[in-house]
């Protein structure tokens, strides 16, 4: 019986010479499985295919033929007029994409209006778009450095009567307004970066190194408020935050940083109003 078992290669209770045989068998089985796996992987045929995934818009804009980028409460940077730049950029993007008819009109003096109605948030709108500003305040530029400074102007967006009147004036469009904070920022701390070196054999080695760096840049924090021009009510609000940091020695114009940051969030803004197709590649298996 023992001889028969040995011949067929069946295992015996632990003892003497069977152990090396068993180990050898296991090793050959393991090699065989690995080989089979490799063959199976090699045999898996696949093909790559480009796809476009449609993402539905957040807002149903079917009731609107026209869109009015009314202007923004903005501040925090003297080099960039974030209000005007944002209005220009959004209007041109909407025109290029053919998303509704873009109304080309002067922006609204929102800061002045907000200041005038500040004491009474629900006060009726001023008779004319051009707000009446006390003479002593006319030359004084409002200081907006952070979100807290913006708060005093927020009530203007909830003034339903005002926005309804604006809507009537421009044939009941979808109104886009809000606040844009574009502020310089400075940060110092440890940053991980890759350092190139050569080993004793002359081979190039890249090693991650943590270094202390002074960095400066900008933060862009726009809040887009979409108002129904027929009712004056807010339909949707969306806030974004993007920042960019450079080496402290690098001189980057504020305006180019502003456009770089706006570029990042524009697809999301446009996707609020229209469907967007996200291009990608996937693998089909056989």
């Amino acid at each position, binding site marked *: 019986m023992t001889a028969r078992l040995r011949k067929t290669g069946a295992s015996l209770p632990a003892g003497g010479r069977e152990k090396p045989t068993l180990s050898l068998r296991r090793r050959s089985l393991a090699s065989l499985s690995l080989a089979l796996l490799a063959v199976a992987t090699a045999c898996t045929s696949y093909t790559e295919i480009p796809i476009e995934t449609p993402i539905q818009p957040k807002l149903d804009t079917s009731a609107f033929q026209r869109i009015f980028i009314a202007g923004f409460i903005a501040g925090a940077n003297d080099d960039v007029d974030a209000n005007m730049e944002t209005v220009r950029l959004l209007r041109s993007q909407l025109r290029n994409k053919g998303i509704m008819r873009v109304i080309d009109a002067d922006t609204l003096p929102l800061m002045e209006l907000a200041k005038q109605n500040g004491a009474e948030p629900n006060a009726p709108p001023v008779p004319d778009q051009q707000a009446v500003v006390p003479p002593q305040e006319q030359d004084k530029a409002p200081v907006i450095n952070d979100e807290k400074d913006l708060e005093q102007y927020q009530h203007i967006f909830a003034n339903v009567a005002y926005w309804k009147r604006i809507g009537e004036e421009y044939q009941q469009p979808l109104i886009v307004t809000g606040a844009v904070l574009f502020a310089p920022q400075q940060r110092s701390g440890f940053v991980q970066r890759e350092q190139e070196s050569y080993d004793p054999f002359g081979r190039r080695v890249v090693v991650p190194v943590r270094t202390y760096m002074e960095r400066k840049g900008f933060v862009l924090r726009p809040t887009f408020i979409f108002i129904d021009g027929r009712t004056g009510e807010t339909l949707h609000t969306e806030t974004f935050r993007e920042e960019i940091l450079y080496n402290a020695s690098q001189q980057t114009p504020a305006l180019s940083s502003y456009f770089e940051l706006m570029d990042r969030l524009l697809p999301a803004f446009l996707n609020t109003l229209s469907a967007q197709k996200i291009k990608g590649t996937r693998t089909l*298996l*056989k």
Partner: protein
Amino acid sequence: MQFRSLAFALSLALVSAPAAWAGQRGQAKEQVEFGIQVAQRGLWKEAIYRWERAAQLDPTYAAAFNNLAVAYEHEGQLSKAREAYEKALALEPNNALVRQNYDLFKEINDRAAQKDGR
């Protein structure tokens, strides 16, 4: 005699089961390959029909579910795509290609979910 017949029936079933399974897989594979051809020509609806058929023919065929998921994704049917990817991964948890597709899908799906406030 009765035992013999039972044993014969059992062994016949055991012998024919893999053959039947292989036959189903063969048909499913044909559907999958045809689906790929039409998808490459942009006929995604037809591809979906083919891959759904393949998944019905052989519910253990991960490739059919993977391809179906890709097609659903292309058509914007994101919840169906997720289901199909998850089924493909349940069948082949170690398939790196399915995993890669699923990871890419999740990025888009998460964005859409964020938009919906989900």
